[in-house]
């Protein structure tokens, strides 16, 4: 109450509050952690079966990095990281569907890797100066590690797109995966990215980040005379909504694999 006896006007955002308490901030971090967890788990599949030894090492090293990023992000939300990573119901995960795809074809893995790591470079960049200080520190730490991921993805893509076989094989995969990758920039339900930007949690809104990412991808593919179609061709055939808790058909098997050790020995740790 103010001195006129009237209720104080409530402002949308309390500027002096903890940025982590801005509505949607924790859900956004959870969504990014879930993305990293699923990507890390899926890339780990390539251990010992990569098309050549160096690629085997690269994909599984990147897998380890992404799992480390998941762990750091979950760590911002609570102490029991295993419970967050493995112990939730499927509808409580907020990962984008592209991260759940198995991609057991190497070309598919490369295209997804390129789309995902370019997206990550944009979103870590938008979080590097976050008013949520520990989130900013994780983002800066992760950005330093991401550069080698980007160099790996773009180096292979550049070389392969200079060949007819590479163009014939890879470009149709962009048609298939680019629209799905847009889901990486969807906001979790109830998360207002305007509020997050206003509170300084993120430097710019998710739509803005998506546009920056699409420019980076478009620029990389322009030499091949190709521009990705970003819109989902048939929304009925590929309903998205990973951020809203809807899981793709691939999630169940992925999750079962993740919790396999834990279900044998519940006291096992990361």
């Amino acid at each position: 109450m103010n001195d006129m006896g009237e209720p104080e006007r409530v402002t949308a955002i309390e500027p002096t509050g903890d940025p982590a308490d801005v509505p949607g901030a924790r859900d956004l971090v959870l969504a990014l952690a879930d993305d990293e967890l699923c990507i890390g788990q899926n890339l780990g599949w390539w251990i010992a079966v990569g098309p050549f030894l160096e690629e085997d090492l690269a994909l599984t090293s990147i897998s380890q990095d992404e799992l480390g990023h998941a762990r750091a992000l979950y760590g911002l939300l609570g102490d029991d990281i295993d419970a967050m990573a493995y112990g939730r119901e499927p509808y409580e995960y907020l990962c984008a569907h592209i991260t759940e795809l198995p991609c057991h074809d190497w070309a598919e893995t490369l295209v997804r890797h390129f789309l995902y790591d370019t997206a990550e470079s944009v979103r870590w960049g938008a979080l590097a100066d976050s008013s949520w200080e520990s989130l900013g520190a994780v983002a800066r730490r992760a950005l330093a590690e991401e550069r080698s991921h980007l160099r790996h993805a773009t180096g292979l893509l550049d070389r392969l797109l200079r060949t007819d076989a590479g163009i014939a094989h890879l470009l149709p995969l962009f048609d298939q995966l680019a629209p799905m990758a847009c889901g990486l920039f969807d906001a979790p339900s109830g998360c207002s990215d305007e509020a997050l930007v206003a509170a300084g949690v993120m430097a710019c809104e998710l739509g803005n980040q998506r546009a920056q990412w699409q420019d980076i991808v478009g620029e990389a593919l322009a030499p091949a005379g190709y521009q990705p179609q970003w819109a989902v061709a048939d929304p009925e055939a590929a309903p998205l909504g990973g951020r809203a808790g809807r899981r793709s058909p691939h999630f169940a098997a992925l999750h079962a694999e993740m919790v396999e050790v834990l279900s044998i020995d519940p006291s096992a740790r990361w």
Partner: protein
Amino acid sequence: MSRAVPAAVVAAVRRSVSQVCDPEYPEVTIAELGILERVSSTDGGSTVRIELVPTMLGCPALDVIARDATDAARAACAGADISIEVAFVDSPVWTPDRIAPSAVDFLAREYSVAVRRRSANASCPICGGTALEHRSDFGPTPCRSVEWCPQCRNPVEVVGRVEFPAATGAAQSSPAAMGAAQSSPVPA
């Protein structure tokens, strides 16, 4: 009410934790590798806090290092009623420059592993050649890349895959800069 941790106990914990060795290089301590950041008394003086800096966020040895540091701290307290807290901190960021010169020499001599620091060129641990050529960002552990020595024609493992920020906590604030980084040449 808890009593303050005596400075002598903090010093004893610091000495003990400084002797903890890295699981990957069992003769090299976490102090020499720059993983041990700080040992201090916190929480109104009732807790000894040990701050560690992860080499990589996904390093699988982090849990082992934290456990060994906790054990070493407990041993130094010798049953005194003191809380031990071990934490990995995100800042400062670890870089190969944090490795002590003595450990750089030891890693070269005993493990044939080179270290890439800003302060000095990485040199081949086999022949001493300094014209190492980058081969792959990804080696046998997340923190090691693979280079090639044209002088003795051997592949060389180099600690330091990641281009670390120039200054501790320096923000990569421009997302567009990451896009630009894609086309930059691979640093030697």
